[in-house]
């Protein structure tokens, strides 16, 4: 059975050229870049080259990049740096659809006495920009927003928000883990103060991330230690992985037109094909969205069941259903968008990459209808090819829960 990998927002396959670039640094190039001898010097030079490649992808200066261990560390660093460097300001603005790295930090800060405002989104997942504008106060230390939503791919107006924050003297951070490599980014033309990214979403391995910190921005390190990364992140550099992200950045820059051309066309064809299945809806704005992501709900069936049947047929995907999240509730992103509960539990995220082929899309379009129909045959809410809602199992007994309402 051939694998059709449509889960590239979860993680990507390490590109062969990335692995090739990394290998010498597991073998003969073992020096510490801080050492004052040639073994260290060679490695330091490789790090400089890798930093240049990432800076080129982001449109920033090499010294504005701080390497971290992952996207979550980048988010934590940005958030805590903004708060520690502005101890008098006690207000944080973010959105209702952020990654857990920001959401759970915001919840923690709220318990510590910070004021946290979470901006809502509309039915299509688009940010309520007026609500955001109204939320900014002189006490606001930081605005942090996802650039591209990991579940729906919907894009937030990051460039505009960053400009607004600059005008008001508020630090602006974006978690761009899903956006980097998929949409053009040119940081020096924006007012973005900090940007988080993660290597394993760009065909580099897991275990490496980076944070862009605009030149001149006040900064407090999250990991306190040595002079590495200009004293912004202590700890001996993860040399092979930094080199890997450099190679991945070069690859991403080269592949960007393909992401927005061939990959987008495959995504659109897949989505159009899936919409032919009855009672199927696309979650999220179909224009303001990453080129590789599609979030589709198959009503009256449950996501985990869909995933297992898909997996059995070779397809790898994700779901925003309660059963796959471990939280017992469907995705906070879909709930914030007001996706009806008939659809939230049956949501499937398909995320493509340049590694996918047209033949795979054809195969997926053969597999999907059979899987959905098999599960609908079991469902108490489906009869003779149409929804059957004449039973008492639609909502729970209490009728007061937050899921029903």
């Amino acid at each position, binding site marked *: 059975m051939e694998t059709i990998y449509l889960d590239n927002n979860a993680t990507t396959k390490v590109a062969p050229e990335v692995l090739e670039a990394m290998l010498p640094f597991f073998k003969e190039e073992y020096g510490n870049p801080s050492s004052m001898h040639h073994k260290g010097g060679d490695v330091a030079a490789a790090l400089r080259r890798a930093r240049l490649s990432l800076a080129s992808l982001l449109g920033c200066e090499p010294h504005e990049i701080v390497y971290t261990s992952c996207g979550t560390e980048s988010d934590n660093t940005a958030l805590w740096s903004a708060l520690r460097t502005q101890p008098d300001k006690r207000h944080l603005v973010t959105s209702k659809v952020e990654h857990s790295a920001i959401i759970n930090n915001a919840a923690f800060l709220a318990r510590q006495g910070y004021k946290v405002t979470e901006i809502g989104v509309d039915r299509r997942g688009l940010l309520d920009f007026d609500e955001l504008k109204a939320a900014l106060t002189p006490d606001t230390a930081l605005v942090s927003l996802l650039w591209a939503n990991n579940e729906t791919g919907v894009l937030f107006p990051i460039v505009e928000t960053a400009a607004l924050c600059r005008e008001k003297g508020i630090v602006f951070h974006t978690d761009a883990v899903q956006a980097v490599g998929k949409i053009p980014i040119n940081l020096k033309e924006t007012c973005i103060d900090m940007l988080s990214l993660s290597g394993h979403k760009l065909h580099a391995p897991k275990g490496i991330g980076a944070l862009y910190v605009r030149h001149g921005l006040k900064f407090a390190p999250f990991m306190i230690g040595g002079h590495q990364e200009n004293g912004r992140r202590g700890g001996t550099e993860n040399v092979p992985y930094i080199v890997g992200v450099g190679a991945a950045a070069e690859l991403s820059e080269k592949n960007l037109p393909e992401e927005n051309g061939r990959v987008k066309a495959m995504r659109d064809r897949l989505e159009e094909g899936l919409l032919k299945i009855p009672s199927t809806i696309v979650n999220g704005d179909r224009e303001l969205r990453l080129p590789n992501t599609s979030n589709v709900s198959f009503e009256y069936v449950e996501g985990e069941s869909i995933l297992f049947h898909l997996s059995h047929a070779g397809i790898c995907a994700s779901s925003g259903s309660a059963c796959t999240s471990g939280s*017992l509730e469907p995705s906070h992103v879909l709930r914030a968008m007001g996706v009806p509960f008939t659809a939230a539990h049956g949501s499937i995220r398909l995320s493509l990459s340049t590694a996918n082929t047209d033949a795979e899309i054809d195969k997926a379009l053969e597999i999907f209808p059979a899987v959905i129909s098999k599960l609908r045959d079991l469902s108490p809410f489906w009869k003779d090819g149409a929804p059957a809602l004449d039973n008492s199992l639609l909502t729970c007994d209490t009728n007061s829960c937050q899921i029903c309402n």
Partner: protein
Amino acid sequence: MWEYTDRVMDHFENPRNVGVVARIDGEGQVGSLSCGDALRLTIQVDKDKDLIEDAKFQTFGCASAIASSSALTEMIKGKTLDDALNLTNQDIADFLGGLPREKMHCSVMGQEALEAAVANYRGLPPRALSSEVVCQCFGVTEEEIERVVKTNRLTTVEEITQFTKAGGGCGKCVPKLEAILGRLLKKSSGNGSGEKTAVAPRMTALKRIKLIEEVINTQIAPALMQDGGDIELVDVDGDEVVVALKGSCSSCPSSKRTLSDFVTEKLRALVDPQIVVKEQRS
């Protein structure tokens, strides 16, 4: 990815007894579309023998919900109603070679659907209405929680969530779950039946502050009032409890002793042995 047994995957991939029985003598519906899993079980009963002739299901839910439903129908077909009612959720899980802990609520759903179907056949009211709904998010009653805790010998709130989903939504009912669990554990250790010791439920900051306040108001203040004094809680910061003494206490030369001995001793005994009491001086 969940670790499902081959048996679970078999019943998920090839579910047995899907649909509705030819003659519906009893019907049980559990869960809901909104909550993420729902099961409709129908049974056909041989009235002379009081025996389940046929059972079929329709399920909306995850792989383990579908497998549990399929297993349930296989287990009850041919059984008398009374024998079928003796099945526990653990029997369903065992039939499938076990379920991940987080998925045990699927087996509970199967067991409840069976009970509801038999009650429906016998013309009895559905049991969920007979006790207080504790978890509003998933509509779980106190009676249901008690039974699952006892049957499965659960000792933590996390396990209650895994088995019933209660507490897995907004989390507001967690203190109630802690209280129910505390009561049941106390009872079972009092009987000397279980080897499991009663684990003190984890206290949230709010609960802890409330308890400190309660002890001060009901245990400490009345004693001080007898001597014409009074005490007021000013602040709680971690283990440090700040109080203000009033009336004759505040000027009494032995007030320092009162604090260190009496107030501290009471709070340490009734709330937390780590507590340190400080007095706020005006």
